[in-house]
């Protein structure tokens, strides 16, 4: 399978003409996600002229830069130096994290792919709701759309592949599942993941002073509620659909 499996991690690779990517693992794991978050934090402290922005994904840090101001070679050297600085896989999680309890309808017409996902995981629907509804997951990264979290890590039984065909549209607040993760959708969008739950969370609020609801490192539980209760909660709280939030002591 080429570079991804044969190289020793961490590895630095190009992203188009104007990016370098530092990857800590080719599979999702707790240490590689911590490494990515910590490495990005350190990099932000010592940005070189020509760097436009940095971002993390599940196990990688992306650096976007202007090659007319900063050459590939010079940036690569800096990244290699920083990698050698310490054991990034042993880094702690960021501070100021929060814990969210999010009322969620599993299945029904509001989340029509629960049955299909349960079947693929070798469970009944009730078992699937128990399993997904009790998993405390962490925001591994924000991406795809504004303020949209990738959440994990779910158990091995939820290591389901994406669908081959895209689902044309899931609504705002949709909880979708694949490859031991959830994604909670910010806005209506097509997806290759299965729509197993529905929440009333609105993650991006451009009209508010703090438009972004979640941060990398926040933790969430998607607690099962009945369809009728969910509709009531969403009507009473159009922003969070009845979700509660508290600080995680560090």
């Amino acid at each position, binding site marked *: *399978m*080429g*570079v*991804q499996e044969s190289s020793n991690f961490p590895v630095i*690779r*190009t*992203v*188009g*003409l*104007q*990016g370098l*990517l530092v*990857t800590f693992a*080719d*599979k*999702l794991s707790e240490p590689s996600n911590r490494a990515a978050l910590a490495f990005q934090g350190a990099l932000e402290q010592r940005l070189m002229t020509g760097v*436009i*922005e*940095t*971002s*993390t*994904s*599940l*196990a*990688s840090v*992306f650096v*976007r830069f202007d*090659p*007319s101001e900063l050459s*590939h070679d010079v940036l690569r050297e800096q990244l290699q130096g920083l990698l050698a600085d310490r054991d990034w896989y042993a880094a702690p999680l960021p501070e100021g994290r929060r814990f969210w309890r999010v009322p969620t309808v599993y299945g029904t017409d509001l989340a029509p792919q629960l049955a299909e996902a349960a079947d693929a995981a070798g469970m009944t629907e009730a078992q699937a709701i128990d399993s997904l509804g009790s998993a405390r997951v962490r925001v591994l*990264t*924000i*991406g*795809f*759309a*504004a*303020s*949209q979290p*990738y959440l994990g890590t779910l158990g091995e039984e939820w*290591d389901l*592949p*994406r*669908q*081959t*065909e*895209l689902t044309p549209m899931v609504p705002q607040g949709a909880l979708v599942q*694949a*490859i031991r993760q959830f994604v909670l959708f*910010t*806005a209506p*969008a097509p997806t*290759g993941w299965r729509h197993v739950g529905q929440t009333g969370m609105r993650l*991006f609020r*451009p009209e508010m002073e703090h*438009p*972004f609801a979640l941060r990398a490192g926040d933790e969430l539980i998607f607690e099962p509620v009945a369809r009728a209760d969910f509709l009531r909660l969403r009507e009473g709280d159009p922003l969070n659909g009845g979700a509660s939030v508290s600080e995680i002591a560090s």
Partner: protein
Amino acid sequence: MSGLKVLSAGPLMSVQDMGRPGLLERGISQGGAADVLALAEGAGLLSQGAGLAALEMGGIGGTFEAVGTLRIALTGAPMTATLDGVALTWNASHLVEAGQKLVIGAARRGVYGYLHLGGGIDTDRFLGSRAAHLTGGIGQAVTEGDLLPAGQDAQRETGLGLEVEDRFSGGALRIVKSFQSSLFADDVLARFGDTQFNRGVRANRMGVEMVSDGEGFSAAGQLNILSEVIVPGDVQMTGDGKPFVLLRECQTTGGYPRIGTVLPCDLARVAQSGNGAALQFEWVSLEDGLAIQAKHDAFVKSLPGQCQPLIRDPLDMADLLSYQLVGGAVSANADPFESGENT
């Protein structure tokens, strides 16, 4: 205050600028004009900064009424345009008097046409930009009844034109290998470069589908790859191995593998290719890609100097006597950025 009142609007009309760099970490791609070269052309024609906002019109324009006197420029996909019934030259700047009616019709080639105002469109900024990012939930489409306010216009010159190379009819897209290219077998990479594609019907500001005969372009372990960062120009293979070229308003991460990344300077060609246009991908090395892009960047910087007074046939000039034919003539070679007289 001057500006344009929107009397009617096509369905894909929005205010755009260079977008919002720096928000990838928040899940927001840079966005901005689908064809940023058209933004630079408009800025050159109006002798103003390329960071100002313009109106992007997808497929079809609209009808506008001038509030106050203002300068405009028309760039991007050539569309039919008239001012009080008189045809306007595309890729040119024009003076519009208060109360005049500007009608912009369908694109004759390409997809996105741009209407620029002297001083730029001065709507409110959000997170540093005036650009609508509709898939990201930022801003709104421009619709009937809206007013497009013009910013302070420090310049006066109009009647400049620009020769523009065709980027509206498909052609070659230079592409470099990227961090996931090695997930594709060598023969798949080679076949990708040898294949004749046509622009598919699924196309918007996020990305453009490429269709071809024969089998798709799949990677090993395609459905179980970790979601990773996406950049504009990435060519993503969906589950069935169909390529999508992602544009500036693309998602920021995704799990479908990317076979490579189209050079930024060729993205306007992707966005502007009409339905069915023939396109091919041409693999280039990173080194060559950087050189091609640097040459393009230098070309964009030279655009203001390439804008020349439009040559008009006096017989077409019904208002000939209102022209000041001698005094205040400008040199065709004058560079407004050099002389400083317009600042």
